[in-house]
């Protein structure tokens, strides 16, 4: 009846309390090191490469359903998209003539002032959301392409509404982006109305970005649109970031802070664009032959905006 292998008169191995203490100390050390330094990134990378096949395998049914659904709906989607685009085209036609006018005028003025602004088409990669990590402490998205596609930490992620976030970690097959409402992201912005330069951070209020530490009499009000200023060189200038919807002026500290609603929608679609800008430690970011020439050409060193306030300072 009694199986001999399970007959244990004495406890073997170290006592449970000892194991508990060791593991708790390891966990605490991991937590503290991970919160403050990047030492653990290789370990994280190795583990995520190991679990990647499982993630893909388990998401395969979902991906298959989505693909089939896309196929079946392709005609209807194309039609409705076409209608929307027609409408948008008519609306934009007017705007574009106006913009073209302003553009020539601007170019002329810049020529007069001797300021050059080379517009180089930014190489980019389309990525799809692999999954959205369930995590109460930060807001992240995991994409289905990684360093094999030329993605490196620090690159901006955009959608049609503007900046979505920034890549923070990559593995060869996946990349992880911090959404712009995440605490770790800071974006140099300026107000479209008056050009006031600020830095937008992720906010404690979920789904908002905030700007802080500016003088309480600064000219910022509800409805102001923040766009990237291009300072720092990581985010190209002119991408829409957020619309200010709350301004707190604290007369005791002399500083003010404002909150804004992001203009992009990280929670809505599955496809985003990663801009392959040169970032720290990644001077040749592109392995894709189709986009190599633009980054390898000498103009790549000067493809940042060379406006009066642009500094090649990398984050």
């Amino acid at each position, binding site marked *: 009846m*009694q*199986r001999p292998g*399970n007959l*244990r008169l004495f406890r073997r191995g170290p006592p*449970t309390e000892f*194991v*508990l203490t060791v*593991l*708790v100390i*390891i*966990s*605490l*050390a*991991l*937590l*503290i090191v*991970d*919160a403050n330094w990047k030492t*653990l990134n290789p*370990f*994280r990378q190795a*583990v*995520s490469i190991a*679990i990647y096949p*499982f*993630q893909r*395998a*388990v*998401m395969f049914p*979902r991906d298959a359903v989505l693909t089939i659904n896309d196929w079946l709906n392709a005609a209807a989607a194309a039609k409705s998209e076409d209608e929307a685009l027609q409408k948008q085209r008519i609306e934009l036609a007017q705007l574009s003539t106006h913009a073209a006018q302003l553009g020539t005028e601007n170019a002329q003025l810049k020529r007069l002032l001797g300021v050059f602004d080379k517009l180089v088409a930014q190489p980019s990669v389309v990525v799809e959301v692999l*999954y*959205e*990590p*369930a*995590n*109460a*402490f*930060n807001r*992240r998205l*995991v994409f289905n392409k990684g360093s094999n596609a030329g993605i490196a930490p620090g690159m901006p992620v955009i959608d049609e509404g503007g900046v979505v976030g920034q890549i923070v*970690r990559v593995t060869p097959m996946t990349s*992880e982006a911090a959404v712009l409402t995440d*605490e770790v992201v800071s974006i140099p912005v300026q107000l479209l109305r008056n050009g006031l330069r600020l830095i937008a951070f992720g906010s*404690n209020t979920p789904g908002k970005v905030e700007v802080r530490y500016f003088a309480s009499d600064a000219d910022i009000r509800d409805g102001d649109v923040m766009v990237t200023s291009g300072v720092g060189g990581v985010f190209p200038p002119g991408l829409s970031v957020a619309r200010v919807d709350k301004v707190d002026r604290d007369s005791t500290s002399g500083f003010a802070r404002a909150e804004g609603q992001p203009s992009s929608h990280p929670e809505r679609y599955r496809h985003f664009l990663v801009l392959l800008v040169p970032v720290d430690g990644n001077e040749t970011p592109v392995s894709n032959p189709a986009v190599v020439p633009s980054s390898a050409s000498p103009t790549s060193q000067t493809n940042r905006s060379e406006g009066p306030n642009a500094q090649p300072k990398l984050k």
Partner: protein
Amino acid sequence: MRSQSSSSTRSRATQPPVPRPQTVRPDPLENLTNPRFLWGTLVLVWVFSLLPWRAWPYAPDILLLVISLWCVYDSNRVGLITAFVFGLLMDVHDAGPLGQHALTYTLMAYGARVSHRRLLRFELWGQCLHMLPVFIASSMIGTLICAWVAGAWPGWSWLVSAIFTGLLWPCIGWLLLIPQRRRADVEVNSV
């Protein structure tokens, strides 16, 4: 002497001749699971946890539940180290603070392990009541330490999630113990 024996025969006549089957219940401490089934369920539940349903902030942590169930029902095979490793895997998948799940899972496994002899004398609902505070305490410690390290309070969703996890103990336990119960039935019938 005579009266004693007569009373004993009378009592024997009133009682059934054979003890009832319920009293022959096998000792729960001797019930051991097939290791293949055990590790199979663990890996299956882990893979299931990689799916996006956990994005709901109040989603119960089924992996934690299954690990602690096995810590109670098969404490020789599943222990703190298993819990820690699965916790690390979840941390990497969730892209959160590295060590949060590892800490919570280790504490939970310890809570299940120290009380497993006592718990096995209870039915699943009794175990559920015992384990609910352990689920809440381990999640609370994990969340508090992470909140301290990250410098941000994540809200109370972890509490609801821990309560859901604890309340699922009887359901998941019933499912996982099907093979054991079947074997116990066979043994009772063979007597």
